[in-house]
């Protein structure tokens, strides 16, 4: 079970959120003094869901054509903006400042495997 408070403890975390399978924002935390707002998070949640779906389609196609496994099922997606990144996995996401962003730990906290 992903703990949104733990996500907020990541270095540079400015927001954590949970979204439905349709990308709708269900729950969120925003760090005080942060520029981001609920509307932006709702759209970001839709962006994450859309990209997880596209990546899933790509992984499916890639594995069928190339015979190389290891991508499907897609676990997570991250968009890296100018100043911050949104890391999403399953139905949760976290927004991190780019400087010092720890993607590995973010993915691990969100429920994926791999070394940190």
């Amino acid at each position, binding site marked *: 079970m992903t703990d949104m408070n733990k996500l907020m403890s990541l270095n540079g975390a400015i927001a954590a959120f949970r979204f439905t399978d349709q990308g709708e924002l269900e729950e969120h935390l925003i760090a005080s003094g942060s520029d981001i707002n609920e509307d932006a998070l709702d759209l970001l949640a839709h962006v994450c869901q859309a990209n997880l779906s596209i990546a899933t389609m790509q*992984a499916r196609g890639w594995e069928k054509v190339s015979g190389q496994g290891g991508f499907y099922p897609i676990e*997570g997606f991250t968009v890296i903006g*100018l100043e*911050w990144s949104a*890391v999403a996995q399953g139905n949760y996401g976290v927004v991190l400042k780019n400087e010092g962003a720890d*993607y590995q730990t973010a*993915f691990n906290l969100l429920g994926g495997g791999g070394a940190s």
Partner: protein
Amino acid sequence: MSVLLELSGKPGVIAVGEYSYRGDRFSVKGELSDEMARMASIMCRTTTMSEHMQARILDSFCPDCGILPPQGWIVRGPMFTVCNIANVFCFLDNNTGSLNEIVAQMRELLGDTDPKLI
């Protein structure tokens, strides 16, 4: 040293590639056949285009809050991860590669790429 050469020598890096934003050229170094390299370039370019549109829409909800211009994206699978900054992508083994190091290096080398090239 070229960006591709520099990244291809890092631990866990399976392949690195570069594509033109116009979609007419690509080059890849690493363990991908020519056909897989072509497919990877098409997929990464499409995702980058999509990311740029989404970032512009996001920016309209949250003007000047730091999403524009977007620098890249990461897709994580159970064994492998693909990370892309500007028009360069990297296939990484989750167990032997360091995602943070690779992304930091890619951002350092490519983070300032002019978004008008898209």
